[in-house]
């Protein structure tokens, strides 16, 4: 089980902006890491944009699960994990991070903030600590706490999109994804649909 990224975002009226993020991409091959990181950022932003205030959701995309929580005050957080990682622990982590973040960073700074301006340094520590859910979260065995029925589950990223919208188009249009990442996305798509050539 693995956590790949943990990010805090602000959900604006049309777009969301990244406030702070931490990544653990050691399990990806070296030359893919930068693209994977861009994609995780892109995906996290998209998911926050498409999630309504005051709700929790888990989005499945291939072998990854993106867990999101957007609070009523528009502050949101996303953790990207593999499918093995216990969902409940992810939401505990998100609650904890958002609570801590809102205590340390003034809410006036949220709408215009970005990773350079926001002074909140705990994400890396949290991400590292939560790699082993049993050590990080003593309550793992207690399942009752969180009402799992209230978490919306999306089986693909596509189900977040509006009618007529396509993920491929969003990727192509994105300003945050570099050319290499877009190429990476295309090969990944191809390899997913057909046998691997190289």
């Amino acid at each position, binding site marked *: 089980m693995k956590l790949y990224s943990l990010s805090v975002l602000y959900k604006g009226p049309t777009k969301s902006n990244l406030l702070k993020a931490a990544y653990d991409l050691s399990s990806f091959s070296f030359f893919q890491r930068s693209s994977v990181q861009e994609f995780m950022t892109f995906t996290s932003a998209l998911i926050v944009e498409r999630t309504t205030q005051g709700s929790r959701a888990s989005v499945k995309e291939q072998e990854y699960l993106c867990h999101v929580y957007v609070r009523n005050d528009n502050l949101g957080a996303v953790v990207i994990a593999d499918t093995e990682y216990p969902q409940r622990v992810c939401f505990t982590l998100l609650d904890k991070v958002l609570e801590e973040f809102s205590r340390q960073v003034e809410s006036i700074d949220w709408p215009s903030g970005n990773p350079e301006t926001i002074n909140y340094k705990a994400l890396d520590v949290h991400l590292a600590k939560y790699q082993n859910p049993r050590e990080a979260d003593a309550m*793992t065995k207690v*399942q009752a706490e969180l009402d799992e029925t209230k978490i919306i589950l999306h089986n693909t990223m596509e189900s977040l999109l509006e009618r007529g919208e396509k993920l491929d188009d969003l990727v192509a249009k994105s300003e945050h994804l570099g050319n290499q990442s877009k*190429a990476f996305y*295309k090969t990944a798509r191809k390899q997913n649909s057909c046998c691997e050539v190289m």
Partner: protein
Amino acid sequence: MAETEEEVDVLVQRVVKDITNAFKRNPNIDECGVIPCPEARYNRSPIVLVENKLGVESWCVKFLLPYVHNKLLLYRQRKHWLDREALMDITCTLLLLNPDFTTAWNVRKELLQSGVLHPEKDLYLGKLALSKFPKSPETWIHRRMLDKSTKQQQQQQHYGETEQAGAERSQQLSDQLARTLHQEMKVCSDAACRYPSNYNAWSHRIWVLQHMAKGNIKVFHDELSSMRLWVSMHVSDHSGFHYRQFLLKELSTELSQTSACIPTIMTSPQHQSSTVPSSCSHNHSHTQANGELPGAEAAEDERQLGFHTVFQLFHEEMELCSDLIQSFPGHETLWSHRRHVFYLWHNLRKEHQQHCSINGGIMSGHPKDSDLCLPDGDAQSCAVRGESVNGQRQASEPMEVDGASLPEPCDSKRLKRGVLLPGPPALPSEHSFVSGVLDRCSNPEQRRFALAYKKWLDTVIGQQP
């Protein structure tokens, strides 16, 4: 760029050379990968070396791969001559891009056999190929060939030497073996982390242990404990858990064998028969009762010690399994692991009890008799064990009875003997584990697995005589 045949030729030769040079420049390259890059950037080599990572820009693969592929095939068909240097370079490039190309590995095998290529080099190339293709069957197969031949070579060198030099050599040899073992374990771990349920990597790991550490209890034991954290972090990796099942099985066989063969070393040949539970040993035992009983006792003690260790291993494994099932609900891997471990233990205990009942007859009248026969000598736990063999009665009986009576005798014994003897995995404890899960957990998957396990206990274990 590079449209005409001639241009492709020049380009590819340059790229192959670049790869060779990269390895010369940095002998510590530990990973290979393709960099997504649809178009060539003018006048720049597609081979990139960053830190210890070798990258190939993706645009050149479509030129490179068919070219080196064809060239090697032409060489194989004797239509095109390549010298050894060129062969090594071409096969290296080819295998980094497609490690399942058997012909290329075979060419390298010939180079190895003719002594031009050092096996270390191919182990290294294989490791790199696995960094991008962690499952590649051909790479694993080639690796086994290499491991086998290095081992044979080492042994042959060993036989050729005088006795005095031999002692020194044998130390060297075991150091070498330990190094190889460590290196292979590392390669397997890396591949297992890169690809979930990597059957090929885990099979290789099993093969390595069987061929390089057969009978070495310490190595198996270390493997079991070092893999503990790994499986706890990969709770749906079937292959990883299967590896643990293999380790447990080997350890339990080894431990009971070691203890059984100790008397052959320590005592007279007459004695061996007394440890063999056959009909003739009955006669022997009477004669031995007068003179040489201590030897038999020691052997039996050894056996018990071995069984105790095995018992402890199985207990710990079941504890780990329970812990993981409760912490990470809804993973079938954990339940099937439980099933396998319990089954192994169940069979082992049956064998042990058979042995005990035979030996109990031999050693009757001996004061330590009851202690020797069952790890927990109390009459109470004796009864629990007896019952659990008779599964049908067990299944129909309410669980609270066993659940309440079981821990107590163990606790009192711990006090008496000062030895930690936890409750044995047995049918009643399994049933109470399952009902505990069913009571507490609302996860539908988890409930389904728990019920399936219960059904398995009832139909497979419960029906056995």
